[in-house]
């Protein structure tokens, strides 16, 4: 009977080999697939046991930190309350993650490369999150929130040479601590879930004339002294276009037209340049694609031209687009505040556009920098000489034009106002201001806007907000 026993053992051997094979299947071969399975909540539960690294502003003030709870898990606290609801976001097991908490999740959890993690496991080292040091400035952020004064709108300020974002304020804000206390997203005030700085798509109004001016001068088709008729109304794309308050101008230089924000001049320039040239320059500035910044894709919108009844943006050379009106920031053109800050930034930085960044570096628990987040160029938008000329023209706007309200004591500011009409009947406007300062040695580029202002103008409503923030940042 021994031979069949040996064969029986062989069968058992085979069965057990199958068990090991199937265990290998789940532990190794299909491990990632299982860990990424939507039903798998283990990752989330595991993350609760990791002390998530803090998020700090550029001076080291804690924006987010983790506290241990009695059951050994960790929970997020946001010491600055609603100051950084945007763009920092929140991270809670039941509510998910947004903003920088989501974008830098791996770093905050201290997930390093697989090799060192295995090594850590063997020596039993616990996973500890790293700190995210941001480029944000809590003091200036507070000034921005105060200046917005509860009105819906946004302020973005960044360093033109590096793209480091110093202020990103969006009203209404939310306090992530309240989300935790109520364990519900309902604690976000109405409209507060949207980061208006990166997701708000608004008609940029006359601030967009900077883009038109850049295209006009950089192509060599115009100079700052080119003479153009500023009569009002003037037929643009077959429809009469008027200047603000119907103001009449004769033949004026492009510089004067920008200083006084003369619509009919820029309408003509836009028509003359044509849709493809305008589209080309807009794309160089970053229009027509999702605005670049280290935030989750779902929290970044793109800027471009939308024609009525269509969901997607169309190119400016589309025959349905009124190039003349796009050239003055209307005609279905929509832009995010961050995109408009990028316009000022490119002019300030001699024509080179930098990628905006909120993360500055990753620091481990011992204070060593693990990763420096290097500034990144998005390419050259215009010749340095164009940037110089347009900068001078923008300085004139603040010195003697529509933007005098942004003038700072002892510092020359270059800017451009904008007032987009939201409802002509009720005189509801969206005031804008974009700027950079100091003119000679730009340190900050900024965009500020208020969604709805009764009769407000860019120069009277938005320029003072930018001024307050610039004042704080240049102090």
């Amino acid at each position, binding site marked *: 009977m021994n031979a069949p026993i040996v064969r029986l053992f062989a069968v058992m051997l085979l069965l057990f080999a199958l068990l090991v094979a199937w265990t290998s299947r789940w*532990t190794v071969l299909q491990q990632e697939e299982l860990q990424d399975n939507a039903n798998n909540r283990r990752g989330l539960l595991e993350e609760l046991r990791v002390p998530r690294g803090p998020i700090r502003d550029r001076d080291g003030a804690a924006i987010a930190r983790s506290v241990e709870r009695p*059951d050994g898990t960790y929970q997020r606290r946001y010491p600055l309350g609603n100051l950084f609801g945007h763009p920092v976001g929140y991270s809670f097991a039941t509510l998910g993650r947004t903003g920088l908490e989501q974008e830098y999740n791996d770093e905050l959890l201290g997930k390093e490369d697989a090799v060192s993690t295995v090594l850590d496991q063997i020596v039993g080292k616990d996973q500890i999150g790293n700190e995210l040091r941001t480029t944000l400035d809590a003091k200036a952020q507070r000034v921005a929130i105060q200046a917005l004064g509860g009105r819906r709108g946004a302020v973005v300020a960044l360093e033109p040479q590096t793209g480091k974002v110093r202020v990103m304020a969006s009203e209404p804000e939310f306090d992530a601590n309240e989300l935790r206390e109520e364990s519900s997203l309902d604690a976000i005030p109405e409209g507060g879930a949207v980061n208006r700085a990166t997701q708000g798509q608004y008609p940029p109004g006359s601030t967009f004339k900077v883009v038109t001016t850049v295209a006009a001068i950089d192509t060599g088709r115009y100079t700052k002294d080119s003479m153009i008729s500023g009569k009002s109304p003037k037929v643009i794309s077959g429809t009469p276009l008027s200047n603000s308050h119907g103001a009449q101008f004769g033949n004026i230089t492009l510089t004067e037209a920008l200083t006084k924000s003369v619509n009919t001049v820029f309408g003509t320039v836009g028509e003359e340049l044509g849709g493809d040239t305008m589209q080309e320059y807009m794309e160089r500035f970053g229009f027509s694609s999702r605005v670049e910044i280290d935030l989750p894709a779902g929290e970044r919108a793109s800027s471009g031209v939308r024609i009525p009844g269509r969901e997607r943006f169309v190119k400016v050379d589309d025959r349905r687009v009124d190039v003349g009106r796009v050239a003055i920031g209307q005609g279905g053109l929509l832009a995010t505040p961050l995109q408009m800050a990028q316009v000022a930034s490119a002019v300030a930085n001699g024509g080179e556009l930098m990628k905006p960044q909120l993360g500055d570096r990753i620091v481990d628990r011992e204070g060593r920098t693990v990763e420096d987040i290097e500034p990144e160029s998005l390419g050259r938008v215009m010749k340095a000489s164009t940037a110089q000329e347009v900068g001078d023209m923008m300085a004139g706007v603040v010195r003697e034009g529509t933007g005098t309200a942004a003038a700072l004591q002892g510092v020359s500011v270059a800017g451009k106002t904008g007032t987009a009409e939201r409802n002509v009947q009720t005189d509801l406007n969206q005031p804008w201001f974009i700027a950079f300062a100091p003119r000679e040695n730009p340190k900050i580029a900024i965009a500020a806007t208020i969604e709805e202002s009764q009769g407000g103008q860019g120069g009277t409503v938005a320029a003072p907000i930018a001024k307050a923030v610039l004042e704080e940042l240049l102090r």
Partner: protein
Amino acid sequence: MSARNRELLALVPAALLVAGGFAAVFLQQDELHAEVSNLSLTIAAWFLGLCLGAHIIIRFTLPHADPYLFPLVAILASVGLVEIYRIDETLARDQATWFVGGLVVFAATIVLLRDYRPLERYRYTIALAGIVLLLLPRVPFLDAQVNGAYLGVAIGPITFQPAELAKICMIIFLASYLRDTRQVMAQKLRLKDLGPLLVIWGTSMVLLVFIRDLGSSLMFFGGFLALVYVATSRLSLVAVGLGMFAAGAAFFATTVPHVKDRIAAWQDPFDPELFNAQVGGSYQIAQSLFAQADGGLFGTGFGQAVLEPRSILPAAETDLIYALITNELGLFGAAALIGVYLFIVERGFKTAMLAEDSFSKLLATGLTAVFALQVFVIVGGVTKLIPLTGVTLPFVSYGGSSVIANFILLALLLTVSNRARAPR
């Protein structure tokens, strides 16, 4: 070195495992809960004392028995105890108590059945006892239905799984029955010799319907086929038997709702409807696979797997303990555990080969085969090789009936081995 000294030496790995494992879990929990509990050390000391006690009993009663079987079982028991302690201290204390009970029964079996051959005389009584045991869970007032299967009997506060004991009864009966008929069956297959085969097939089908458990019935029928094959060397019988079982299983899989659910969950555990089903869904098997994926090659380490909330791994201490072990010890640890089982199976078959008489050979073969198949059924279920059914992982899973029945099985194997290896 004598067999018993080798056995004593072979207990060292188990001692190291239980000490190291408890220390690891202890440190891990100490980090979480500030208060220090010395329960872990108490349980570890108890456990090692018990192992030594059992060793001494074997030394005096079965001096020639296989020296590796008991230490291998001790390794399994220590892994199980550490993992159960890691899940819940109270459960570990209960399990340690069951081990005491198991070892008492173990010692009693050895002393009473040092000569096991008289068992043959009571084969029909034993067979009847086995069938009664199997049907007990369906007796009104005693039934304790778990996940739609009738596996347990509730007597007061104690739930007890009679199938664990019934498997031993069945093997004793078959070994003695086949000893008588194997010559005839091996010579020429007559219809009347197929009778018992049909009876057993019928019984396992009835089992499938009555206790609604594909795993147990696979285990019983597989053990039966293994014995028939070894007794007669006729593969044709095995083939016919497998065919009949497959046909029966296929029929019931489409008609018995509980079995049907299990198979659906096995085929597609991530189907949203099955995954979120309140009853009979695939949530458990899906969580089992997630836990194993978390283990990877090396595992998270003793005491480090995610186990809160408990619903993240349902029945972690019984059905899914293999998933928890894979989670904490990784593929390597799980493969080592399978290796230990394989080693036991090897020693079991070795005992059968060394045995002189047919009854001893068949008894050792049957006990070993049913033990191996039980491991296959539960680990195969947990790893989704076959549909998941609720049998225990021998000596590792939490549960009194399992511990006691498997210690009886071990005692029988050791007595057969003692006789087979005794110098003549």
